């Protein structure tokens, strides 16, 4: 991101300078005045179908109300946003908006729309569609899960039409990297949805049972067919607004099929059998299995390095009902002692976790920002190796003693033991608990791993607070710190160790609150980074989350799939679906696989 000294900051992409050059290419012959986006990457060939596997079925195709990952995966292929975040560079880039200018105070954005855009049903797009889209998202009656993102400083962002191709957005307060919020806000076709919205039924529109003809979007693909429980088939949107460097209109693929396969093992089996073309994510063991499998010679396995997922151990530091759970309250005295948490952190062998749990395909973590997030990572954080001696010293300082059997006791002579909650559906976190258990045994701490069904676990952590320690993982959808607000603000619902506090309970939490709020309204990147570095430092010192490891993004695809460039944020493999193509003639492959 560059800045100049003018009132407006003009952010454009270099490629836009070449605008209009390809106006007369055959692919877009019918709309000579179109603003098309020219993509990087190889120019491919047309045709073919791609089979992608989803772990679950999408719940809806309505972009406004979609909550779950599979729905979003499919919808993103069908819809487009104004500005999007490049999944590989993690920086914003123009999408339906050709360019935008930001006012100096960061409170006004004027976006310029591409001309001549059409929805996949051929209906032209204009600024009214944009206004409708934001009206819909911001309508409280619709209950869009994304509404909160569009409410800044308690005020919904204001949207107004400047002219047919310009839209102005007003923010009630400066908001850092505000253009990132446009990512994933899908432009809705007013001609198809306005009626439903006026009737208050927008939430019910575009369910899985809606006929494809009643849906349209600006994404590279459009709905072709839905087979309940089995698959969703998307076909090419012939009005898509991206072209390759030869001016060929994207996408290359005729269709994408999303097959619903709940078990990872079956996904792997389907990939080996040649029935699936892409594995969006596999575990380390299956990755090794695939690499050893002779029949996946035509498969390309890629370790895309660490993602944005961070797994951590945390203690219950919140308010617990002393009458109902006196035992937990008594133990919280240890958990609240920062030296205790530091000792635990020192005793945990993160390298062992990386090796045993992830087969080496992960990074050990000492802070919540993973190495994948190079922009925001505080590289200065210390990365101490496992040290039982240091842990013992810390415990000794905190008044803990050891009995003759080597068991740890607190100052009052009570043996130190606690339970670690893990989700029974997460194999990896269960295994981490096993490693930690053995590590802590060396400190004389007995731990019990309690494996619970995920919802039951969440209920304990967030509502009943009947737990002592737990291992969870969070995945950031974006590299920016703003989506992490809910985790780090003491009032946040994902402030796991002590959620939804009215007042920060400790000084360091208050400090983090202040820093996080400040960075949000700071427009200067360097300053923001400074603030966020400090957050990371405080977190690493006080260890509300004892971060353990971040698994690598492991993906697989057919070797002859062109432009396959896995990203480290979701969707790892399909983020550039419009550019994917089959290197061999499509017919030959189709016969081979299906």
């Amino acid at each position, binding site marked *: 991101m560059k800045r100049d000294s003018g009132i407006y900051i003009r952010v454009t992409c270099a490629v836009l300078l070449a605008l209009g050059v390809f106006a007369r290419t055959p692919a877009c012959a019918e709309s000579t005045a179109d603003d098309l986006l020219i993509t990087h990457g190889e120019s491919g060939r047309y045709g073919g179908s791609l089979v992608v596997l989803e772990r679950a*079925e999408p*719940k*809806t195709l309505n972009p406004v109300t979609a909550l779950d990952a599979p729905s979003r995966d499919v919808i993103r292929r069908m819809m487009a946003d104004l500005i999007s975040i490049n999944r590989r560079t993690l920086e914003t880039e123009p999408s339906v908006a050709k360019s935008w200018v930001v006012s100096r105070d960061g409170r006004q954005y004027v976006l310029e729309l591409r001309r001549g855009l059409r929805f996949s049903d051929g209906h032209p797009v204009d600024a009214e569609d944009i206004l409708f889209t934001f009206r819909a998202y911001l309508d409280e009656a619709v209950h869009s899960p994304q509404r909160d993102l569009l409410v800044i400083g308690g005020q919904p962002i204001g949207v107004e039409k400047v002219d047919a191709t310009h839209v102005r957005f007003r923010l009630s307060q400066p908001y850092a990297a505000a253009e990132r919020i446009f990512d994933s806000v899908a432009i809705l076709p007013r001609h198809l949805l306005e009626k439903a919205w006026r009737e208050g039924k927008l939430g019910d529109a575009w369910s899985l*049972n809606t006929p494809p003809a009643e849906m349209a979007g600006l994404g590279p693909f459009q709905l072709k067919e839905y087979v309940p429980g089995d698959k969703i088939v998307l076909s090419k949107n012939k009005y898509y607004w991206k072209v390759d460097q030869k001016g060929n209109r994207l996408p290359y693929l005729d269709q994408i099929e999303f097959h619903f396969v*709940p078990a990872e093992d079956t996904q792997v089996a*389907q990939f080996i*059998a040649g029935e699936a073309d892409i594995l969006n994510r596999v575990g380390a063991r299956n990755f090794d299995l695939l690499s050893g499998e002779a029949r996946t010679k035509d498969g390309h396995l890629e370790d895309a390095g660490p993602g944005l997922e961070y797994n951590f151990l945390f203690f219950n530091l919140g308010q617990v009902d002393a009458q109902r759970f006196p035992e937990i309250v008594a133990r919280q005295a240890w958990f609240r002692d920062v030296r205790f948490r530091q000792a635990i952190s020192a005793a945990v062998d993160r390298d062992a976790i990386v090796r045993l749990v992830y087969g080496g395909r992960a990074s050990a973590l000492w802070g919540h920002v993973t190495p994948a997030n190079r922009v925001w990572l505080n590289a200065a954080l210390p990365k101490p190796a496992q040290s039982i001696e240091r842990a013992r010293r810390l415990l000794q300082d905190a008044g803990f003693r050891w009995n003759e059997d080597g068991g740890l006791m607190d100052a009052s002579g009570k043996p130190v033991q606690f339970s670690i909650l893990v989700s029974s559906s997460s194999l990896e976190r269960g295994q981490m608990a096993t490693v930690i258990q053995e590590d802590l045994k060396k400190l004389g701490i007995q731990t019990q791993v309690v494996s619970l069904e995920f919802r039951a676990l969440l*209920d304990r952590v967030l509502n009943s607070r009947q737990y002592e320690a737990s291992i969870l993982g969070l995945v950031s959808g974006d590299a920016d710190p703003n989506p992490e607000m809910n985790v780090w603000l003491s009032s946040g619902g994902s402030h796991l160790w002590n959620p939804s506090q009215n007042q920060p309970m400790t000084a360091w939490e208050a400090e983090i609150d202040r820093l996080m709020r400040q960075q949000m309204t700071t427009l200067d990147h360097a300053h923001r980074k400074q603030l966020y570095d400090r957050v990371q430092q405080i977190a690493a010192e006080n260890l509300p989350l004892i971060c353990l490891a971040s698994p690598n993004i492991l993906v697989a695809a057919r070797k002859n799939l062109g432009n396959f460039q896995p990203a480290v944020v979701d969707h790892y493999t399909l983020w550039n679906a419009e550019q994917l193509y089959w290197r061999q003639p499509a017919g030959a492959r189709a016969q081979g696989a299906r």
Partner: protein
Amino acid sequence: MFRRYLLRRLLHALFLLAGISVLSFVLLELAPGDFLGEAKLNPQLGPATVAALRQQYGLNQSLPQRYARWLGSLADGSMGVSFAYNLPVSTLLWPRARKTLQLTVTALLLSWMIALPLGVWSAAVRRGWLDRFAGLATSLLLALPDLVLACLALFVAVRAGWFRSNSAVLPVTVLVLATLPTLLRHVRSAIFDVAGQAHVRAARSQGIAGAQLWFRWLLPAAANPLASLFGLSIAGLVSSSLLVETILGWPGLGPLFLEAIAARDFYLVIGPVMLSAAFLIGGLLLGDLLLYLIDPRIRIQT
């Protein structure tokens, strides 16, 4: 008499289903966590939105209110609304139930078609080394949980290159293997129970022997306990089918149900629960009716 009996049993079944639905509602309510539990973790969702959603889904209503509404939704055939899908449960249920039924009916027929001759054969060679081997093989199948069996089958299929995602061969095989040992044991012991009866010696004294004796004479006589088992086996198959479908990616009720359970999608859980309860009760009823048809002696008892 038969019609009255059938009518009475159907009435019982209806009461039973009503009871199951009430208990299911209570149990689901008592279970920790609810549909919006995870929403708190979603950084994009504020507490106000969560509260609004809770209102929209009717999660803040009392249990009797919700039950009454659900009963009402039975009348229009929708069986309530799935929170996640925002669709009537019935539209989600039926296409998948058909797939599940396809799988279970095939597996049911196949496993019985295998279990009957194999069970009779194993009774015929009783205590021979072949019978012991069969016993060991059934022990092996009994000792493997359904989940492991499914994974093993998947692995073998992949290694051998037989794996096809759209074919029902693998799930049916797993279901058959999972059901077979119990059926085999019961067929074998039912045949033994009959083999000691006087009419068997009478048949032998008339020169009836070998396959004719075992299959045409003994098997019908042993059908009584097997008819009850038939009913129970339907129920068993439906429940293991849900697991196997999820693992092997069969587009039946299984994945939908397990996901709904994990998500606490209230009515979407109740739907399959009621459906599988109906399967189960239907299966037991079918077993009793079958018994009635197979065993003429039952017809004179009340």
